[in-house]
């Protein structure tokens, strides 16, 4: 990806002109300042307020520790408000959703791209149609299905299966997985087949190892989507002890003092932000990828 080379909008000759250089340079500085204030500012405020006593945050929200720190907010959020438990729930849900999504997307993409049974076209067509259906159409019947599953006859409400199982049905994941497999060199498959590899061996030992980049991207987006998910867990997890952070935080807003509440929110941000900083490249590449599919 040409992330380092700038677009060629401004030609070399133009750069030499001082008016362009200083004008665009100034624009860049302004942009950077705006990005810091707007993009980073709110998070910095959250971090600061998480360790500021509630009273100070209420009366002097833009002050900088007028009465010292309140590290206790963080520990109180983690222990008394039980953020630790909700954090753990979020992690468990994310892992399950990730596994479910990866399992469905890799097997389906492999079948549609490499194995290519005769009916693959039909399924791919169905898949693409599903991609166009807005999520709201599914909401109510899926909910009822989870409340009263037809064959199993035991409710999935308040179990994590209610989240993990539907998570696998992501047409987007299957499409990009399939696309990636389409672009793998077929000769390697042929060589493997000639060596006697069956479909499972081919999948496990050849295709998957070659797909590390796309697996990485799908994984990151799966975990991130799960961390951010709100409406569905809100509906299917009515037991507070099972709820993830995103569902629990709004419910405890009325019962938690502001400083502790902000500390809880800060903790909820840590994993996504840290993950982003570490896996930046994959994030941004994946975002560009989704743009490539849409474009």
């Amino acid at each position, binding site marked *: 990806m040409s992330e380092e080379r700038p677009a060629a909008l401004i030609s070399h000759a133009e750069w030499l002109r001082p008016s362009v250089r200083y004008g665009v340079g100034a624009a860049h500085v302004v942009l950077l300042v705006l990005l810091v204030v707007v993009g980073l500012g709110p998070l910095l405020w959250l971090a600061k307020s998480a360790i500021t006593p509630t009273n100070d945050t209420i009366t002097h929200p833009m002050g900088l520790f007028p009465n010292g720190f309140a590290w206790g907010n963080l520990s109180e959020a983690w222990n*008394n*408000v039980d953020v630790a438990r909700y954090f753990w729930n979020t992690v468990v849900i994310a892992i399950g959703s990730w596994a479910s999504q990866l399992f469905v997307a890799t097997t389906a993409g492999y079948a549609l791209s490499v194995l290519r049974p005769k009916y693959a076209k039909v399924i791919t067509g169905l898949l693409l149609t599903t991609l166009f259906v807005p999520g709201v159409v599914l909401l109510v019947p899926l909910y*009822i299905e989870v*409340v*009263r599953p037809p064959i*199993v006859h*035991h*409710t*999935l*409400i*308040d*179990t994590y*299966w209610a989240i993990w*199982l539907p998570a696998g049905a992501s047409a987007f994941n299957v499409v990009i997985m399939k696309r990636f497999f389409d672009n793998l060199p077929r000769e390697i498959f042929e060589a493997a087949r000639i060596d006697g590899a*069956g*479909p*499972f*061996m081919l999948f496990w030992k050849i295709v998957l190892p070659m797909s590390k980049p796309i697996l990485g991207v799908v994984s990151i987006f799966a975990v991130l989507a799960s961390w951010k998910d709100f409406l569905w867990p809100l*509906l*299917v997890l*009515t*037991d*507070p*002890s099972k709820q993830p952070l995103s569902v629990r935080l709004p*419910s*405890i*807003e*009325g*019962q*938690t*003092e502001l400083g502790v509440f902000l500390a809880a929110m800060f903790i909820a941000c840590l994993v996504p932000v840290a993950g982003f900083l570490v896996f930046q490249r994959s994030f941004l590449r994946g975002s560009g990828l989704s743009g490539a599919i849409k474009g």
Partner: protein
Amino acid sequence: MKSIRTVTAALVAVGLLAACATAAAVASSTKTVTISVASLIPGSTQAAINQFNAQVAEFEKANPSIKVEPVQYQWTAPTFAAKLAAGTLPTVFEVPFTDARSLGDAGQVADITSLVKALPYYSKFNKAVLAEATDSKGQIIALPKGAYAQALHYNRQLFQQAGLNPNKPPTTWAQVEADALAIHQKTGKPGYVEMAKDDNTAGWILTTLVYSLGGRMETGRGTSAKATLDNPQTVSALNLLKHMRWTDNSMGSNFDYGWSDINQAFAAGQVGMYVSGSDVYTNLVQAYNVNPSIYGLAPIPLAKNKNAGVLGGGTLAVVKPNASAAQKVAAVKWMDFFYEEPLVSKAQAIRNAKTLAANKQPIGVPALPLFDKAQSQLANTWIQPYINVPISQMKPFLNGIYNENVIPEPEASTQSVYHALDAVVESVLTNKNTDIQSMLQQANSEAQQAISSGS
């Protein structure tokens, strides 16, 4: 062939996976009966949780064949519907008066008539309260947990700072307005705040105001009831709010208070007065560690109108419909022990009070009597020595409530009526130029539609 073996292995794996997806059935034991019971609102303090667990231990000791599992529980409209549909409510759960009858009629709570009638104190129940626990077929489906009347809560400290006498809370709505203005001018804090959230609490409090002026939201019963939301008293109540909000500016700047956040704001000393159930002091202590010295409780000011009264409501404990016979017996035993015994048995009342006191939980919060007058007064003397709430600061309410008519909430489609009023309250408080008449008419037709369709 190798691939067939792997294929078979894969088939087995898929089969196992499918089996895993099937949730396991709940194990049932032979001798002990297990019931799950609603315990505390999620987020309660550890002390409150300890107290509840202590009571569970006491019950299990007295009834070795019953095992009780506490489940944190809070009744909110969306989660209740979900749990009801999914059947994940605890064996014993709680519902407000307004929902109990509909649930009973729809067969969504168990019929416990025979078990309740077998209780030794059955004849001493307050008839009005028992009526709320009876469905339209005459079956008793609940035992009362508590009944409350609406009340005016006020911050004694802010009263003092505003130059008002904390022992003389306002007794008319005009006085409420004047006192609110004084508080705002002298302390900068809102003198009077009102619930205005879209979760039916706005309509609930407005209905309280309207009742206190002598108005009613409905006439008749059931699906043939007629909605009367746009009666003159509602207009007066809204105009009062409008005046306080826009002319006096004594209502502060936040107009989306719900039941918990208004308690939170009050406990933090941020507001002067508000209307809510007379029993919220328990929540103020259990969730927010309120400073007892700021708390004052007054009766709702009533207009000089023979229809003026104070809105009352309450909570009932009910049993899941598909509980087994043994579970129903155990459930009623628990309900008897936890909800009723402290009011009918001296020994239990004292034991209960001791447990609550040990865990620093409030004892003696004013409530409406669940039993007849004689029994209620007797019960009060038992716990007299243990009362740890600032009962003297609640005197205005305790004295005044006996002169007030307690009126039940609108009977038909209660929540829908409240919901229709939510928007009107919000509009009055956030838009200076609201057309009250037209909004009320709209709310009225919305409520009428809900009533006629029985929803």
